[in-house]
């Protein structure tokens, strides 16, 4: 639900969190991102940068140049002026993915041995969502396109929601988080899916792994078009099921620089058409 008025809370002495609503739907995501872009363009003295969430924007400011009250007043005025972009650029990027892979399984085993006992992540998700088994989890997770709402937590990491509500699955988060996660792990928590871009800590459940790199800090790979991160907010992701042999073939091609990234560039995304389609579905059915 979108709030009637954005909610504002301080985050220490140099950030404020502006929340536009309490769900993670596309409308709120486009609202938050539209506001963040407008804030950049407005170039308000003392506003340093903004960091969008699914339905919020964290604004960093310099209180020596703009005080808290003035910042809030300027931000609220801008929030009133900025509309929701209803048609946006959106690329579709394919990620060959080996579900139920040996690397994330080994990582879960290590967590069990060194931190605490827990179920195998995909089995936990099957139970939580009353699925028939691991096969249904893989089928559901790979059936929909995912919307990248935000990039962050770690460099280039896409946080996504399934576009087809019939493919929604929920998962709890690790407590405590893992000290490491394999790079390329496909992970789920809450209603979100993400891909780990680095060998890094993590709190999401692991269900598979993709060999496709998402970061290129030294600009070696033309598929990144000069960017460090492969993906950007508003792109869509599709996971294509592959087996271990195919994973190894793709990994070898990436290493020798001959892998062709599957990125589809000609499409635009219409929020109104999407919302009309979702309204026509029976969300209780599974795909």
């Amino acid at each position, binding site marked *: 639900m979108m709030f009637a008025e954005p909610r504002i809370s301080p985050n220490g002495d140099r950030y404020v969190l502006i929340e536009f609503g309490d769900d993670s739907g596309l409308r709120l995501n486009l609202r938050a991102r539209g506001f963040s872009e407008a804030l950049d363009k407005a170039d308000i003295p003392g506003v340093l940068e903004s960091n969008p969430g699914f*339905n919020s924007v964290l604004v960093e400011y310099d209180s020596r140049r703009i005080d808290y009250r003035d910042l809030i007043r300027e931000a609220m005025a801008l929030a009133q002026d900025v509309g929701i972009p209803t048609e946006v650029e959106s690329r579709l990027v394919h990620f060959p993915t080996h579900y139920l892979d040996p690397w994330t399984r080994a990582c879960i085993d290590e967590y069990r041995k060194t931190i605490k006992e827990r179920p195998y992540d995909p089995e936990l998700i099957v139970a939580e969502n009353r699925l028939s088994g691991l096969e249904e989890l893989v089928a559901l997770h790979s059936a929909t396109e995912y919307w990248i709402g935000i990039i962050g937590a770690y460099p280039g990491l896409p946080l996504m929601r399934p576009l087809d509500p019939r493919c929604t699955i929920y998962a709890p988060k690790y*407590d405590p988080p893992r000290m490491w996660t394999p790079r390329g792990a496909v992970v789920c928590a809450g209603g979100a899916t993400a891909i780990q871009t680095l060998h890094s800590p993590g709190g999401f459940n692991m269900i598979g792994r993709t060999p496709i790199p998402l970061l290129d800090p030294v600009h070696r790979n033309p598929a990144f078009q000069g960017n460090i991160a492969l993906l950007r907010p508003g792109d869509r992701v599709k996971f294509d099921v592959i087996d271990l042999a195919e994973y190894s073939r793709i990994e070898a091609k990436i290493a020798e620089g001959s892998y062709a990234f599957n990125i589809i560039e000609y499409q635009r995304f219409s929020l109104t058409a999407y919302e009309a389609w979702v309204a026509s579905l029976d969300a209780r059915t599974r795909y």
Partner: protein
Amino acid sequence: MAGAAVEVVKAGLETTIQDYPGRIGVIRSGYPVSGPMDGWSFRLANRLVGNDPTAAGLECQFIGPTLLFHDDRTVALCGAQMRATLDGAPMEMWASTCVRAGQIVALGSALRGARSYLAVSGGIDVPAFLGSRATYVLGQVGGIEGAPLKEGQCLPLGRGVKRAGQRRVANQVRPVFPSDRVWSIEVVPGPNDDWIDDDAQARFFASGWTVSTRSNRVGVRLDGPEWSFARRAYDKSAENGSHPSNVIEHGYGLGSINLCGQTPIVLGPDGLTLGGFICPYTVPTGSLWKVGQARPGDVFRFLSVTVEAAQAARDALDALCFASDTIEEL
């Protein structure tokens, strides 16, 4: 002098090249700010050797490095007490020291505090990544190949600045590390203080929180009493995640106290830029140095301050770092 370098004889526990304030303006690509955990000590060390405030220096964590200088430099060590020597003779902390070509500066273990900062005149001249030389180890960028120092490496140095006179940081403007290892740390309530209940808020301020051994530049984990939650943490859609500490992903400010289930983590300079856990409180900029100097087993006691008070404290600390009477010419 071009090509000048300092050679790493021993690397120390995890010594990294950092600069202040770090990597700014790139939060949306998911890169954290990095930079020194104790910006106060770091900035004073740079001033002692006559460097520009943005010059890169070394953050030495718990066990410091041993360094062989290839040319004459002025160095200064500020922050955690690490028995430092120059060719075996004691080297004064919080003061500038002239080092001649061929001499060795050796740092020991941190006796009080966790991180010591070594500035070298001219600064450490590695290529910048996204505008900063700060090392971000998880992301493998900044510093030298994004990694802590390694034995045998040569760190390139910038052009040596004109030799400064002997300098010292005035006693009253040095950070004080508590001898009983109990830190009093300011927090600003929010952004998610309304997700925890009144009891949890009272417990937060009444309890001592012990720094966990599983702490680093990404985050400082704290052990303490259980958290209990307000209605808002339960009355929410499934997409938030099932635990009361789970929320739809939002941006995290540096210093946020991020509640992961029952584990509070103070987000450090290499911390996550956003995530799906609530942040009931935030350690403001002017108090972050304390988090950077805390050792496992140290205890945090929190006190609540307003946004305006936290801003005034940050301004006062910045003013102190730049004030002329902070540095005494000897």
